[in-house]
C-alpha cells in the first residue's frame, strides 16, 4: 500500500518537474522590428513597426510571429490610412501571422549562427498561404535572435491594387523581420 503511494508521489513530482522543463524551453519576443517595402519605377514606399511579437517552442522547433497591422508606420499618415482601409483592411484582419517548423534541428543550448528555413503558414489579409521562409537564428546564451527577409505577393493574399495606382504600388512587397527572444519566465 505504502509503496504504491510513494511511487505515485514520485511520478507526480516528476510530472511537475516536466512542467518546469517545458516552460523553460519557450522563448518570447515582444518588440521585434518589421518593415515592408514596395518599389516601382514611380515610387518607393516604406513602412516599419517595432510591435511584432514572436514565440519559439524550442523542443518542438516551432516558431510563430505576429504583427498588428495597424502598428506599421508610414511617413505619410494619409497613406497609412489608405493602406489600412483600402488594401490590408486591418479592421477586418488586424493581425498578420506566420507559424511554422524550423529545420534543421538545432541544439538550443549551443551558441552560434544558424541559417534555417521555416516551413509553415503565412496569414495576411485573412488568407492562408503555405510558405517556406529562409532566415537566420543566432543563439547567444539565453537570447535568441531571428532575422529574415522575404517577399509577399499582393495577389496571393487577395489584396487588390486598383489600376489607378498600379504604377505606384509593387505587386510583390518585400518584408523584413529582425528581433530577439528571451526565455519565458
Amino acid at each position, binding site marked *: 500500500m505504502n509503496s504504491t503511494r510513494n511511487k*505515485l*508521489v514520485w511520478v*507526480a513530482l516528476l*510530472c511537475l518537474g*516536466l512542467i518546469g522543463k517545458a516552460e523553460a524551453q519557450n522563448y518570447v519576443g515582444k518588440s521585434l522590428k518589421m518593415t515592408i517595402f514596395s518599389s516601382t519605377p514611380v515610387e518607393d514606399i516604406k513602412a516599419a513597426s517595432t510591435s511584432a511579437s514572436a514565440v519559439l517552442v524550442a523542443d518542438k522547433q516551432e516558431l510563430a510571429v505576429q504583427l498588428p497591422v495597424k*502598428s506599421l508606420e508610414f*511617413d*505619410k499618415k494619409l497613406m497609412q490610412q489608405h493602406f489600412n482601409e483600402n488594401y490590408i483592411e486591418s479592421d477586418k484582419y488586424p493581425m498578420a501571422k506566420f507559424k511554422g517548423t524550423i529545420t534543421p534541428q538545432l541544439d538550443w543550448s549551443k551558441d552560434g549562427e544558424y541559417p534555417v528555413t521555416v516551413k509553415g503558414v503565412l496569414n495576411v489579409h485573412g488568407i492562408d498561404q503555405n510558405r517556406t521562409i529562409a532566415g537566420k537564428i543566432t543563439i547567444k546564451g539565453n537570447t535568441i535572435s531571428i532575422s529574415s527577409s522575404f517577399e509577399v505577393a499582393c495577389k496571393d493574399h487577395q489584396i487588390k491594387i*486598383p489600376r489607378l495606382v498600379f504604377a505606384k504600388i509593387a505587386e510583390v512587397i518585400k518584408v523584413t523581420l529582425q528581433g530577439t527572444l528571451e526565455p519565458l519566465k
Partner: protein
Amino acid sequence: MKKSKFFIYLFLVLALLAMRASAQTAEALLSQLDSTKKFNKVEATFKATHVVLSHSTETQKKHDLDLRIRHHFGDIGGEFGSAHTLYGLDVATDLFIGLDYGLTDNLTVGFGRSKHDELFNLYVKQKLLQQTTDGSMPINLTFLAQAGLVARKPFTDTEFANYGNRLSYLIQPIFSRKFSQRISLEVMPAFLIRSVSADPNDPKNLFTLGFAGRVKLTKRLSFVADYTLVNGLSRPNKLAVPLYNPLGIGLEIETGGHIFSLNFMNSEYINENSFIANTKKSWTDGGVRFGFTISRNFSLFKSKNPDTKSTIY
C-alpha cells in the same frame, strides 16, 4: 484506502497539468502576446474633414496641409434656373478657397475665404475622443470653434458702423460613430453667434442641430449627406423672408491624396457662419444647386527615419 484514493487523484491532476503544459503550442503562447489592443483606434469614420456642407469629426493628419476649393452654382430650377442659366451653371452663388493644416493628429487649424460677403474664416478643430475597435470608446467627439469676418464694403452707411458687427462665431461639438465599414453617422449640435440678423424676428444667436452620414458604395466612392435643423429650434416660425434648413447630398470620390465631391444642396453659401442662418432656397421650389469640392492633401515635413522614408521618382 481513502488515503490511496486521494493520492491517485493527486497523481491524475498533476499528470494532467504536466500534459497541458507540454501541449502549450506556439500559437497559444502567441495569443497571450496579442498587442492589437494598443492599435485599436477606429480610423477614417469619414474620408474628409467635411461631409457635404458641414464638418465631419475627422481632423488633418499631423503636418498634412489640405487645399480645398469649393463651388456652389445657381438654382437648377425656379425663377433663376432652367436653361437660361444652364440650370444654374452660369451662376456662382459662392466660391471658397481654404487651407486646413494638422498641427498634431488631433488638432487642426483652418483658414479660408468665401466669395459671399468676402467672408474670411478661421477655425480650430480638436479631436477629443476617438472610437475604438474593442468598444471601450463607442464614439468620436471633435470640437469645432470658428470665427468669421465679413470683409465686404457695407451696403448702407450704418451697416458696419460698429466693426464688431462684421464678426460671427460658431461653436460646435461633433459626435460620430463608424457603425460598419460602410456606414458612419454624425450628430452635431451647434451655437451660432451673430452680431446682426437681417430679420429683427430672427434671433442673432441660433441653436442648431445637424445630422450627417456616409454610406460607402465602393472602397473609394461614398454617398454622403448632411442636414442642419435651424427652423423649429430657437428660430420663430414666421419670418418676413422664409429661410430653410440646409440639406446637402453628394458623391465623394477618393483617389489617394485627392478627394472630389459632387454635391447637390439648397444652401447658396459654403461657410457654416453664412449658410446655417441664411439659406433662402428650398429643395421643393427649384432652389437646389450643383456644387463641387476639390481637396488636395500635401504632406509637409517628411521624416528622416530611413525605415519609413518614401520616395517619389
